[in-house]
C-alpha cells in the first residue's frame, strides 16, 4: 500500500505528545525504581514507538463522532485482551512479538464460498476507512478511537451466505506459545464471539485493521478485529482466524463464563445494570483524576442507527 501523506487532525497533537511523554518517562530514572517499590505494578512502560507500524492508505468514512480521540498511548496500553494477560497493560507488554504474518482466516458454515483466505484476500479488495467511534467497555470506562477498517458486511457478502445463515460466529487464534494468557483457563479458549446476521451486515459494524491511520498494534487485536460500537467492547473479538455462518446462536465466551452477567447481545444500555455494578455512567479514559463520570448513552449513542434492529426484543432479558 502507498504511504498516506495527508495530515490528519489527530496526528498534530496526540501522537507527538505520546512520543514526548515516552521520552520523558525513559529519562526519569527514579520512575523505574519507584515502580518497583510499588510492588511490580509498575506503570512505567518500556518504550515502544508507533514508528514500526506502517501507514495505511485510507479515506474518510461515515459515522465518525467529532469527540476528541484518546491518545495513541491510552488506546495502545490500556487493553482487555485476555489472551495476553488479564492486566490492562499485559497485552501491551506481552503482545509485542506476536506474529501476524502470514495470517489465514478459515471461512465456513452456511455460505457458498467457504475456504481458507489469506489476510491479503480478506482485506485487500476493500477501501480502508477512517472511522472515529465511541468505545464502551462493560467495565464502565470508555474511549474514543480512530479506527481504520471496512464494513464487515461488505466482506461477508463475498462469501455468499445462504438463507440458513442467521448468525455469524468468530474465533480468535488459539496459540498458547504466543499468547501466554491462554495458558490459564480464565476463559474457555479459543475466544468465541458472535452476531446476528443483521448486526453483522449493519454498516456501523467494522472489520478493523488499523488505528490512527496505522496498522493495528498487536495488543489491539492485530491483524483483524471486529468493532461493533453500540455493543460492549468484549464483543469486538480480536485476532480473528475463523468466521462461520450458523443457523443457531453461537455460544460466546463471556456468556459461557458468566451467563448471569454477560449475554449474547451485550448492547450498551444504561438502564440494564451489570449484576455487580451500574452501567448508567462511564469514566472517559484520559480525563483528569478530578473529572466527573459521564452518562452512558443508549446503544452507546448509536440508537438512531441500530435501535430498529431490536424492535420487539426485551432488552432486559436479552442483555
Amino acid at each position, binding site marked *: 500500500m502507498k504511504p498516506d501523506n495527508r495530515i490528519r487532525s489527530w496526528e498534530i497533537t496526540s501522537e507527538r505528545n505520546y512520543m514526548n511523554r515516552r521520552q520523558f*518517562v525513559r529519562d526519569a530514572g*527514579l520512575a523505574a525504581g*519507584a515502580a518497583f517499590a510499588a510492588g511490580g505494578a509498575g*506503570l512505567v512502560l518500556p518504550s515502544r514507538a508507533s514508528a514500526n507500524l506502517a501507514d495505511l492508505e485510507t479515506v474518510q468514512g461515515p459515522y465518525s463522532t467529532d469527540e476528541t480521540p484518546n491518545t495513541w498511548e491510552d488506546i495502545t496500553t*490500556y487493553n482487555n485482551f*485476555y489472551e495476553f494477560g488479564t492486566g490492562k497493560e499485559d497485552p501491551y507488554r506481552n503482545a509485542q512479538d506476536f506474529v501476524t504474518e502470514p495470517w489465514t482466516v478459515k471461512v465456513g458454515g452456511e455460505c457458498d464460498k467457504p475456504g481458507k483466505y489469506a489476510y491479503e484476500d480478506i482485506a485487500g479488495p476493500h477501501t480502508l476507512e477512517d472511522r472515529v467511534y465511541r468505545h464502551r467497555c462493560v467495565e464502565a470506562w470508555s474511549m474514543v478511537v480512530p479506527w481504520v477498517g471496512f464494513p464487515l458486511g461488505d466482506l461477508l457478502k463475498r462469501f455468499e451466505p445462504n438463507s440458513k445463515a442467521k448468525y455469524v460466529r468468530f474465533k480468535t487464534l488459539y496459540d498458547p506459545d504466543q499468547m501466554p494468557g491462554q495458558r490459564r483457563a480464565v476463559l474457555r479458549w479459543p475466544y468465541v464471539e458472535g452476531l446476528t446476521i443483521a448486526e453483522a451486515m449493519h454498516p456501523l459494524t467494522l472489520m478493523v485493521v488499523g488505528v490512527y491511520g496505522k496498522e493495528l498494534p498487536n495488543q489491539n487485536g492485530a491483524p483483524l478485529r471486529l468493532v461493533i460500537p453500540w455493543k460492549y467492547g468484549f464483543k469486538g473479538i480480536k485476532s480473528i482466524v475463523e468466521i462461520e455462518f450458523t443457523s443457531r446462536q453461537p455460544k460466546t465466551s463471556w456468556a459461557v463464563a458468566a451467563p448471569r452477567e454477560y449475554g449474547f447481545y451485550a448492547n450498551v444500555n444504561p438502564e440494564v445494570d451489570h449484576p*455487580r*455494578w451500574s452501567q448508567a455512567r462511564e469514566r472517559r479514559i484520559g480525563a483528569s483524576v478530578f473529572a466527573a463520570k459521564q452518562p452512558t448513552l443508549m446503544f452507546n449513542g448509536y440508537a438512531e442507527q441500530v435501535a430498529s434492529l431490536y424492535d420487539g426484543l426485551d432488552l432486559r432479558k436479552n442483555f
Partner: protein
Amino acid sequence: MLKTLAPGTIRALKVPVFLLCLVPLAIILLETFGLAGMSLGANPVEELIHRCGKWGLKFLLITLAVTPLRGLTGWNWLIRFRRMFGLFAFFYILLHFLVYAGLDQRFDLAVILEDIAERPYITIGMAALVLLVPLAVTSTKGMMRRLGRRWKQLHRLVYPIAILGVWHFYWQVKLDTLEPIIYAAILAALLGYRLVSSRRRRAPGRPTDSRNGHDRTAHARRSL
C-alpha cells in the same frame, strides 16, 4: 537473638517503621500528581481506588501476622508495632473509601447509598470499614485500660473485618480471581494458625507448648 529488644530500641525503631508504612502513600501521591515521571495510567481513579484498597488489605494482613510471627519466632516485641500496622490499615482503607466517594462518585450521597444497598460487594466493604471505626477509636492506651477485658473482645472484630475485606476484593474482580485468592490464602493461614494454637493450649497434658517455645503464645493467651 532478637528475642528481646530494649525499650529504647523499640522506640527508635518506630520512626523508620512508621516512615516505611508511608511509602505506599508517597508513591500514590507522586503518581496521582504525575510527579517524577510516574502516573496512575489510563484510568487513574480506578487505579487509585484499587491501590488504596489493596494497601489497606495488606496492612490488615500484616497486622494479623504479628501474633503468628511472635509465636513462631519468639520475638515478643513485634506486638509493640501491631497498633501502628492496624491504624495504617484503617488509614489506607479510609483513603480507599474517600477516593471512591469523592473522586468516583463526587460525594453524591444518593448514588453512594444506592451502591451500598444494591451492590453486595460494596455492602460488605462498607460493613468492614464501619466495623473498623470502633477499633481505630479504641486503639489508644487509655481506651485499652478503660475497656479492660472487653477491649480484647471488641478487637476480635478484626477477624470478620479481614474476611469481609478479602471477600469484597474477590467479589468485585471481573473474572480473574487469582489475586484475591492469594489474599484469601494468606488470611486463611493467619487465622488457621490461631485455631491450631488455641486448640493446643486447650488440650491439657500435652507438652507441645513448652517444648518448642510455644509457651510464649500461651503467655500471650487471648491476645489477637
